[in-house]
């Protein structure tokens, strides 16, 4: 069994990877982000980045995590509830700056890690960097849905 095919089994889910616009996406509903990071470490995948999407006001945020597995780009989406999600910094030190950046841009707290001073704009209130006007917010959030 290939590494890719073995991932759902290792995560204990029935879903399968689906190729879509440049990445292999797996629905990881019910799986914690730390479990995912441990699995990625176990199979030797390389962390790439996290992309944050702002959903309509009452739905919070979605974070898309990307890893590389032997040239295959993997994508996993997580809903963020109450603006908090577990940090994977201790499992994957490469996430340090992107977790801090998302905290500064969207005030999403990555629980379980120490926070250094702000990364991008020291002295500025977190959450201002990607504040959008209502029209922009609508366009962004409809896609994110």
């Amino acid at each position, binding site marked *: 069994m290939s590494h890719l095919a073995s991932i759902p089994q290792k995560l204990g889910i029935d879903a399968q990877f689906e190729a879509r616009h440049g990445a292999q996406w797996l629905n990881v509903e019910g799986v914690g982000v730390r479990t995912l990071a441990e699995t990625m470490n176990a199979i030797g995948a390389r962390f790439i980045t996290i992309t944050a999407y702002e959903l309509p006001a009452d739905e919070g945020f979605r974070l898309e995590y990307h890893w590389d597995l032997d040239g295959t780009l993997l994508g996993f989406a997580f809903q963020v509830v109450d603006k908090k999600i577990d940090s994977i910094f201790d499992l*994957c030190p*490469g996430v340090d700056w992107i977790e801090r950046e998302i905290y500064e841009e969207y005030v999403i707290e990555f629980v379980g890690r120490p926070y250094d001073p702000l990364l991008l704009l020291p002295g500025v209130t977190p959450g201002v*960097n990607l504040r959008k006007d209502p029209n922009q917010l609508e366009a962004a959030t409809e896609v994110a849905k």
Partner: protein
Amino acid sequence: MSYKIPMGPYHPGLEEPYKLDMICEGETVKDAELHIGFNFRNIEHLAETRNFIQVNALMERVCGICSFIHTLTLCQAMEPLAGVEAPPRAKYIRVIMAELERLHSHVLWAGIAAKLMGFKTMFMTCFELREQVMDILAAISGNRVNYSMNRVGGVNRDIEDPAAILKMVEALEKAMVKTVIPIFTGSSTALSRCNGVGVLSREKAIEMAVVGPIARASGLPQDIRKAAPYAAYAEMEFDVQVQTSGDVTARLLVRALEIMESCKILRQALEKLPPGEIDTGDDRKIRFSTGTSVSRVEAPRGEVIYSVSFKENQKNPARVHVRTPTYATMPAIRYMVQGARLADTPLIQASIDPCYSCTDR
């Protein structure tokens, strides 16, 4: 007793805004803290306020060295959502431009590294060679920095005389073989400043998820051109250059050998350049479907990834996220300078070929 030495935010060697606070004992660096954001431009937000043609021009300005790579990655991410694919000739032209940009970036870096080593004759030699590459880029695109070559569905300008460019590439390759590579790989001046300095172990490179020449200099054979070929790279024969010592010498060697690989790719692409169209037609007629698309490209400094979202029939992207290579590699500087002599730290920092403009975006 330890003390802190701040380097930056106006870097003495690289003249760009970034700060490294080094905790030293005597002349030895024990630890370091990195600070970025001095040139933060919020380009990702700006991208949401512009249409896809304007976004192309905007993202070209993420970086002043690998500006072509940014629009290439962006266009490759947008094309599936627009339902278009670049024609074969456009894909070849993208490869040619990307490799010319890699040459210019690597030679620029070699010059700066030479300067930091106190090897100013070599600095002048490298910059003279770089001018030759810049001349080729200007001959193709009409521009020296922001080339405006990419568009959704192809490229804006054709290569009308591949033979002339091939001639220039051959002259450049000869100069590299005769001058630059022997000096960097054999000169005692270069090697005494670089051997065993600023080591990033393979294990640390994996842990920090570094990319590009930094990863390859630490023994990781990762290269998106080979692992996940885009444009016309699947049709090119080349080797991924890997070194295992993880020090400044290894980073220098990887880049020097990659210059030769780029020349090899350029020769193939120019000789096999297929006939045909260079774009898919009037891009004002392009309509995007709802969704998110991701694209990766091997920039001179390593993997760039763009994540782009559109809403049906909207011309402005709803979200553009870019992870640049320096953003992935720069945190590893902390581990490279641990245990190093203070005097070696400018060269160690320069050895990752950092792009602060990319990092701050």
